[in-house]
């Protein structure tokens, strides 16, 4: 009897618990939010959500300006790694850019980068000797550019490059007395080197000018004048 009763009440064939279910359902009546409370609590909730939203906007604005803001533990470590990766990528990109710009010629996209790098180098030199050496190097660069422009038949940039050459040669010569005051021997070495650079440039330009069309020869002549100034 017991067994058959148990089988009858198995999960597959459960006994009816309608009374218990009805009792539970009837309890709903006693568990009601006060009707007058509902609109008021809805309004209160919406006000809370709006102020929460405003707080989130403020936080995200602060985070925009402060990349490590409010982070701690693993989050901070993650952000530091990210920042390091960004800095590393930037450094790599800058290095590659600087390297590529070394051979840029006037009129090319990377040429302004090359000029900016030269100016940056000048900004971090702190003695007349270093400045004079750098201006000499810049003059050599302009001279090489003039040769390359002629070889590549891009004559329209000759004049502007010759003016830049003149400026750097002038700056280098202008610094020589200051170098001499500190070290006369150093000044002498620099002067000889500058003369040598200009003499070589003169020889090359005198050959190249025959290949430059008449209308562009003024640029090469300008450069020749600069080279001859030390004669």
């Amino acid at each position, binding site marked *: 009897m017991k067994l058959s009763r148990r089988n009858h009440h198995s999960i597959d064939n*459960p006994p009816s618990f309608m009374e218990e279910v009805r009792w*539970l359902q009837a309890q709903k009546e006693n*568990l009601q*939010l*006060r009707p*007058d*409370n509902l609109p008021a*609590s*809805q309004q209160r909730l919406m006000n*809370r959500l709006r102020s929460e939203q405003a707080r989130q906007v403020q936080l995200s604005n602060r985070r925009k300006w402060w990349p490590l803001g409010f982070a701690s533990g693993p989050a901070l470590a993650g952000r530091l790694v990210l920042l390091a990766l960004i800095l590393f990528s930037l450094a790599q990109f800058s290095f590659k850019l600087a390297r590529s710009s070394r051979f840029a010629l006037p009129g090319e996209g990377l040429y302004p980068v090359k000029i900016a790098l030269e100016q940056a180098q000048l900004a971090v030199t702190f003695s007349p000797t270093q400045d004079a050496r750098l201006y000499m190097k810049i003059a050599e660069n302009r001279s090489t550019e003039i040769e390359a422009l002629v070889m590549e038949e891009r004559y329209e940039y000759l004049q502007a490059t010759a003016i830049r050459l003149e400026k750097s040669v002038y700056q280098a010569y202008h610094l020589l007395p200051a170098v001499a005051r500190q070290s006369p021997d150093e000044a002498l070495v620099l002067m000889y080197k500058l003369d040598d650079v200009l003499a070589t440039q003169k020889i090359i330009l005198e050959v190249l000018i025959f290949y430059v069309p008449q209308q562009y020869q003024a640029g090469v002549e300008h450069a020749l004048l600069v080279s001859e100034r030390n004669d």
Partner: protein
Amino acid sequence: MPDWQDSNDFGGSDLQDHSERKLIKQAQGGSSEAFGELYLRYAQRVFRYLAVHLENDQDAEDLTEEVFVKAWQALPSYRERGFPFSAFLFRVAHNTMIDYFRSAPPTTTLEGQEISSGAQPGEILVGHLESQQLRQVLRQLSTDYRQVLVLRFINDLSPRETAQVMGRSTGAVRVLQHRALAVLRVLLSKSDFNE
């Protein structure tokens, strides 16, 4: 098979209607008005769930609001995909209640029970006593039995939704429900609550 054993014809529905989906989407996009609408739809049910477990209605009212604030915060991560909004909401309610019990031990008082403007003091008192009787009976059940009965028959969730809230299979919920009702029968027969 009794009608309440069936998956969907008793209690809540697994189908989320179109307007509700729209409201959820708008709320996820930051519309507090849409979320306010969802509050009106679900506040009563969430309140009932909390009120059964808590000692007084005032605490349940306060906590209901808290549940919706937490649900709002968690809403961006909610994806429907077979998990109805009601199940999501009751799960938030359950977790909020656990946090509440951890931070503030429950007390049994009639204090804080504000009298509704539309109700007579006598009605309030009867309602309170009856809800206290319910709490008294349910308190004798294990947590799982209590939860399954409240979700199924007081909150009207379907077995599938109940399973999702409780993190169990639908089959396990059916077994649990059957056993819980059997224990409830014994408890009610011992007392005179259902007379």
